[in-house]
């Protein structure tokens, strides 16, 4: 089989978001939020919503594509896809799955979406009300190892131990996100800057994570319209072309009770080579990165595994100035991301990556033409994608 690539074949043509709310504060139902984001994305793309013929999501989104298709009166549904796995690991993969459907002729106009109204459902950061647990939770919950922060803290602790990474490296990531959120009026933490002193004074959630190392929990929805590259060129917005996408995880990453052989990773070591191979770029070509922050420690591991610096260089590289737009060495999470813009399970990061290529970010990197998204460190499967402007094709 020749030409086994998605490079340059599809584009992200439209982006839509609801207002981002603190968790529990969305004034409408989660399903309404999903519809609003989808319609906004179509409006942004200049596409009639009735042209949608597919949906792609991840992390067990509760909003069934068939119900959405019925609600929107779609004439035909040709693709409905749920990426396996939890957390934000599917954020880039969901785009990749939509792209594969479009490039392969399965569907023509696929919307990637994610909607969350945690106030209406169980929160991620609180233990579910269970009297008993079995399977892997039986080996963790009775020891107070329950929440996502607790699940991932030991991976980061081991990584920091193996490579001598200091807490200041995590702090730089948090400060960069909060810094960028101050220029982003959409951000939940807009107007609430974070200083190094406030970070250092913040309480431990679970060592090695302080409060500001942990993502927010929010209500809202986000959506992206994926069409063929040819179709995108006829639409009003500057296309963000998909250069590469990859998903997966390492050898026995999901071995139960923390028995992954490569324990101290963010799960990307086998994913990244295929990502760069498809995209035809190297880390040095990447102009700006949105890296999913469930926890800052996951970001630092992700950046290492995506080849931006060696683990032993983390303390030197991860300084705030290096991570800031417009002129840092690697502008990171330029909307504020999951820490400070909104925890829209990382789909807001894909939208920000598109904005950078459109020159519409509130923390714009000048002339950004290669824009990366890293989705869901430490879960399995994880995924990443690279978008490019016209000049990269």
């Amino acid at each position: 089989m020749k030409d086994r690539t998605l490079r340059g074949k599809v584009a992200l043509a439209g982006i839509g978001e609801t207002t981002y709310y603190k968790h529990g504060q969305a004034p409408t139902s989660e399903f309404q939020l999903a519809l609003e984001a989808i319609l906004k994305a179509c409006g942004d793309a200049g596409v009639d919503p009735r042209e949608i013929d597919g949906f792609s999501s991840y992390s067990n989104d509760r909003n069934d594509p068939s119900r959405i298709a019925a609600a929107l009166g779609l004439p035909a549904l040709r693709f409905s896809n749920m990426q396996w796995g939890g957390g934000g690991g599917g954020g880039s993969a969901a785009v990749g799955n939509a792209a594969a459907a479009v490039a392969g002729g399965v569907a023509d106009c696929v919307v990637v979406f994610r909607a969350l109204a945690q106030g209406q459902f169980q929160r991620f950061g609180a233990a579910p009300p269970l009297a008993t647990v079995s399977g892997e939770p039986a080996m963790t919950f009775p020891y107070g190892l329950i929440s996502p922060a607790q699940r991932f803290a030991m991976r980061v602790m081991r990584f920091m131990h193996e490579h001598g990474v200091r807490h200041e490296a995590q702090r730089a990531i948090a400060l960069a996100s909060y810094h960028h959120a101050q220029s982003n009026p959409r951000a939940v933490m807009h107007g609430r800057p974070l200083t190094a002193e406030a970070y250092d004074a913040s309480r431990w959630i679970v060592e090695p994570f302080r409060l500001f190392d942990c993502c927010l929990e929010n209500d809202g929805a986000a959506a992206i319209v994926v069409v063929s590259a040819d179709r995108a060129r006829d639409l009003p917005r500057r296309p963000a072309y998909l250069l590469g996408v990859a998903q997966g995880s390492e050898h026995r990453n999901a071995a139960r009770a923390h028995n992954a052989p490569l324990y101290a990773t963010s799960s990307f070591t086998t994913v990244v080579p295929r990502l760069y191979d498809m995209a035809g770029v190297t880390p040095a070509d990447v102009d700006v990165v949105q890296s999913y922050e469930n926890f800052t420690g996951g970001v630092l591991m992700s950046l290492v595994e995506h080849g931006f610096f060696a683990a032993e260089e983390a303390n030197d590289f991860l300084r705030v100035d290096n991570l800031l737009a417009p002129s840092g060495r690697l502008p990171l999470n330029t909307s504020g991301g999951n820490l400070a813009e909104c925890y829209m399970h990382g789909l807001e990061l894909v939208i920000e990556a598109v904005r950078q290529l459109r020159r519409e970010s509130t923390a714009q990197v000048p002339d950004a033409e290669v824009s990366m998204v890293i989705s869901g460190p430490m879960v399995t499967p994880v995924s990443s994608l690279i978008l490019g402007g016209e000049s990269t094709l």
Partner: protein
Amino acid sequence: MSDVATSGAYYLPAGLPAPVPEPDGLDRPYWEGTRRGELMAQRCNRCHAWQWGPEWICHACLATDVGWARVDGRGVIYSWERAWHPVHAALKGHGPYIVVLVELPHAGHIRMLGNLLGDPHQTVTIGAPVEAVFEAHDDAKTPFTLVHWKPV
């Protein structure tokens, strides 16, 4: 590994979800072993590879004849965390506690979880030796036993 904490003197407050074996029986030998004060793990009857957590097939040789063997409850701390924020109602006001991931070098380097007994503010060192301690919850609706670890 003969220490058994007396009933009622638990490391964490009562009220956390209680462990029960999986409905399909996969991990039942482990939980039954803890009741006897024995640490059990899977060991392939064909290639003798250790395996943890339990699975229906041996990851090393793909035999489905996966047996169980008693494991000496000595290991080294592979990683750890000190949890402060109470994510469950039973933990409110309890203060920090330590979870450790313990590597068992003599059993194929499998890893097991548990709490680290002693001062919750103690300095924890990756690589430090630890020993299993069985904490029986005989007063639970369905009695069970947890495995903790103590520095040696």
